[in-house]
Every structure is written in structure tokens, then in C-alpha cells.
């Protein structure tokens, strides 16, 4: 079983206030501490469990600046066999479609016989949850999202449970397939010192847009159908009135306000 895992490096939540936008609407991320998007670790953990049960290989794919390399090292320490970083100026400013197109090209080139692609259901920074389904479209594979249980059956068939609005779906999925997973799926392992040392021998390969035969017009900002047209500060439209006095006075005054008193009736 050959499993590709897609991971995204996201700014650590405590660093969000330091992020600024460039004039073209893209994000200025330099100098901001990155982490592996938390639920992407669950995707990697599941891939490692599948390899443990069925053999095969696990390769991690990510797209981002060279500063992502050290985090791919962490994925290797967790147990991935290989890691690929799609890194190129041409990839900058990609929306979900351009990201999916590039990741799919990377997987096709480096793991052409893949059985399964796993990714986290959504990233904590943008949270669109779109890359899984869009990757599947580019790979011509089936996709499922919000998976909270995956079992590998006979003949490389997967039985997957996915959350819906009124219950859950049980699906028998044939390979190749793309599955977006949730945190309920498993508990990601923490690499030991030995794992970290052992991972030093593993290689991280950087892939450029040229190596993936992706022209500039299909990569990054240029290859993205969506564009940021405008950015603005959310306008304040609340009274923003701080109540003063003793606690009893403040509460009394609050309950006298028309919008509040009306609700109590």
C-alpha cells in the first residue's frame, strides 16, 4: 500500500497578529514561526498505521517556502519514508485550485502507483477544506471528506466512515482515493529521540514547477482562478459602551437597555 500524505505548514496560532498582507493580496509570512497543521498529523498517523498493517511506503508532500523543510524533517521523524517540498517562486500566492493542481502533479510524478492520498480535513489558518476534494479531481480519484474511521479490507479496499449532517456514511472505497480526515481518527505519535536521529538519513526532495512541468500560467497566483480584490478592516458598528459603577448598578443598567429589556419580556 503506497500512501501519500499532504501536509500544510501554517503559522503558529500565537503568531497570527504578526502576519501582514502584501500589496498583491498575498501573505507576508517571513519570520513567522510555522507548525504542521494539527489535523494533518492525524492523516500522517493513519498512513503510518496502514503501512504497519499492510506494508508499503508513506510519502509526505507539502507546498511552501524553504522554511518548511525543518517541519518535513519532523514528518520523517514520525515515520514517513520520503518527503517532498514543492517550493518555487512560481508557486507563491496559490489558491486551493492551484495548490491542488501542484500537489497532484507532485504525487503523479513521485508516487505514480499511489493507492491512497490522505490529508487533514482543513487547515487552521484558512480552513477552506477544499484541497482534498480538488486533489481528487486532478488525480481522477474518488474522494471522501470528514473521515473519522478508516479500515483497510481485503483487495486493498477501504471501508471509511464519514460525518454528515444527519448521521454518518459508511463507504467502501476502491483505490486510488483521496480521504480528508478529522481529529477523531487517531492520536498522532510523538517521535522519540531515536526516531529523530534515524530520520537524519532520510532525504527531503525539493520540487520546482519546472520539474512538475507546470507552466507559470498554471501555478501560484497566476494559476489561481480566485483573486483577492480588496482587503479592509471590519467596520465597527457596535455601541462599544462600557458600563460603570457597582456591579449591581452595571447589571441594572444593562437590563434597562431597550435591546436587552425587550428580550426579558
Amino acid at each position, binding site marked *: 500500500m503506497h500512501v501519500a500524505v499532504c501536509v500544510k505548514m501554517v503559522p503558529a496560532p500565537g503568531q497570527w497578529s504578526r502576519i501582514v498582507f502584501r500589496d498583491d493580496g498575498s501573505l507576508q509570512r517571513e519570520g513567522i514561526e510555522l507548525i504542521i497543521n494539527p489535523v494533518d498529523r492525524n492523516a500522517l498517523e493513519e498512513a503510518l498505521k496502514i503501512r504497519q498493517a499492510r506494508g508499503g511506503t508513506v510519502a509526505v508532500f507539502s507546498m511552501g517556502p524553504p522554511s518548511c523543510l525543518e517541519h518535513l524533517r519532523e514528518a520523517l521523524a514520525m515515520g514517513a519514508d520520503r518527503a517532498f517540498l514543492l517550493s518555487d517562486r512560481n508557486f507563491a500566492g496559490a489558491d486551493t485550485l492551484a495548490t491542488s493542481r501542484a500537489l497532484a502533479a507532485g504525487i503523479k510524478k513521485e508516487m505514480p502507483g499511489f493507492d491512497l492520498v490522505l490529508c487533514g480535513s482543513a487547515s487552521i489558518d484558512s480552513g477552506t477544506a477544499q*484541497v482534498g476534494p*480538488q486533489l481528487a479531481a486532478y488525480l481522477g480519484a474518488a474522494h471522501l471528506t470528514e473521515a473519522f474511521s478508516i479500515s483497510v479490507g481485503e483487495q486493498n479496499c477501504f471501508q471509511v466512515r464519514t460525518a454528515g*449532517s444527519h448521521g454518518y456514511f459508511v*463507504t467502501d*472505497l476502491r483505490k486510488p482515493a483521496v480521504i480528508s480526515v478529522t481529529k477523531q481518527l487517531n492520536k498522532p505519535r510523538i517521535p522519540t529521540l531515536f526516531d529523530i536521529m534515524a530520520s537524519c538519513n532520510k532525504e527531503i526532495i525539493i520540487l520546482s514547477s519546472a520539474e512538475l512541468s507546470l507552466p507559470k500560467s498554471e501555478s501560484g497566483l497566476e494559476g489561481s*482562478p*480566485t483573486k483577492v480584490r480588496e482587503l479592509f478592516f*471590519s467596520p465597527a458598528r457596535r*455601541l462599544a459602551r462600557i458600563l460603570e459603577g457597582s*456591579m449591581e448598578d452595571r447589571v441594572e443598567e444593562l437590563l434597562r437597555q431597550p435591546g436587552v429589556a425587550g428580550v426579558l419580556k
Partner: protein
Amino acid sequence: MIGDIEGKENLWVFVEQFKGVPKQVSLELIAKARMLADRFGLRVAALLIGDNVRNVSPVLINAGADDVFLLEDPLLSQYRSDFYAPVILDLIRKGKPGAVFFGATPIGRDLAPAVAALAETGCTADCIDLELTENGALLQTVPAFGGRMMAVIVTPERRPQIATVRLGVFQQAWFPEHNGRVVDISPQLTQAKFDLVEFVEESLQPSLLFSARVVVAGGAGVDSREGWELLRELAGVLQGALGGSRPALDNGWIRESQMIGHSGSTIRPDLYIAVGISGDVLHMVGVQDAKVIVAVNSDSRAPIFSNSDYGIIGDYREVIPVLINAVKKKQRS
């Protein structure tokens, strides 16, 4: 039949229904599409896909749809991306809509990006506003990551413009006199990519958050069982619902269905009381349509105070019991 209005970039809404009842978010999206379409003389179409779902059509027309594109097949009775996405792609190629809206439900979030990728067009997730310009550009407003900003996203060169929107962002409308037509379309099913073994229905508690007039919510600042009991009691005396922010979910005090904010629920109560919530934009977009917002927080610099109508700076363990007693007293008088 579906492409018979040449040159017009009409607005389509994917309708999600469960057991013949359309989802609220689908009706809200039809109402929004109606409003945008009327400004430019466009038509609104509802995509109704399933098995034996014809009887849903009148509701969709009364909600504002001009056309109901009805695609029925026993194989379409349950949602599945491998059938639904190609069927919608096929429709899009024939009807050439200007935009297609999906509810940001588990199904909509699974389907919309897949359709967008097949059509090689843009998909914008979790829009909190949609506007249409004269030249047909859809202005899709989303909270921009990290802070106090909003971004307007456009898809300048590709059609359709695909957007997902959460429940409660727009308001449903009702047009009892509105005339619409049902257009039967026989779906061209592609090869199955998986076998749907079963759908296990779970009687999930219908979230009271959406219908409650009053919502009391806690955040990172409420960090004890006793604290949450206080909030529960306050919600109780106000006959309201209890919710929370992302940290409250991460800390295990609330369930996923109770989370309010960008990655959770969007609500529009008459009164929203935020306790121990700092009030970053990702939370506030979920309550921006609340009529009145009251903030209780011990940190006077918390951004919630500038995003609220009334603020009480103080320890919630001191504030909430006084508030509970005062409300009870008012109710008795």
C-alpha cells in the same frame, strides 16, 4: 431547456434536502440569489437532485427560485460525490450559470470544491457576504486570516463563480405569489467510484443555537466546571441556548455543534452574551448579525469590547451571579 436564456449569467443554488425537506441554508441562499438576480434581470435556478424529490419543488419556487432543475434517479437518493459532482459539471456546461452557491454543510463542503476543480474555476469557502456587480462579478467577502480584516475575493476570468455560505448568514424569504417552473433533466450518471454501504442516521440534537433568541457563550476565560454551570444557569433563566468559542471547544467544555464562529455556527440571536471571549474576528463573524452583543471579560483590552454594544469589565464569577439574580427579579416583577 436549461441554457435557453442566452447570454445571461444566471444564479444557481444547489439544494440540499433530507427526506424531502430542503435545508434551511438552501432556502436562505435562494433568497439571496433572488435579491441579486432581481437587480440585473437574471433568473434563479435551484438544483434539486435526489430520488422522488419532485414534491420539494414548490417550496423552492416560493423561496424565490424561477427554475427548479430536477434530476431524479434511484442512484442519487443519497449524496455521493462521485455521482453528484459530474452531474452538476454537466449541467454547468449546458446552462453556463454566472455563479453557483452551496451551503457550507458537510455535503456542500465536500461537493462545491470538487465541482470547482472539475470546472477549473474558483471556489470561495464560507462567504459572509455576496454582492454582484453590473458586469456579473461576484464579490465574495470572507474573513481574512489572523485578524481584524475582511477580504473580498473575485473569480475574474472563470465561470461559474462558486461560493459556499454557512447557515444563518442570509435570511430566508417567502414569495407566495412567485411563479416558477420545474425543468426535468435526466442525469447522465458516470461510473461509480465507490460503494455507499449505508447511511446511518443519528438523531443529533437539533442545534438550539440557530433558533434561540438569546445565546450565552463562553470562551477561553471560562475554565472551570463551576464557571460553565453559571453560564448554563444564565442561559436557562433567559430561556436561551449555550454556546462557546473555539478555545471552549478545544478545552472540551462544549460540543462541536455548540461552537460559534467562522469554523462553527453563524447565529443571529436578539441578544448575545459573550463571557470570557476575547473576540477575535474569526469568532465575531459568527455573531455579527446579533441584534445586541453584551461582553463580560476581565481583560479591559480584550477586542470584544469594541465589538459589543455593552461591556462589563470584571470577573465573570462575580458578574454572572448578579446578572442571574437581577434577571430573576425582573421576571418576577
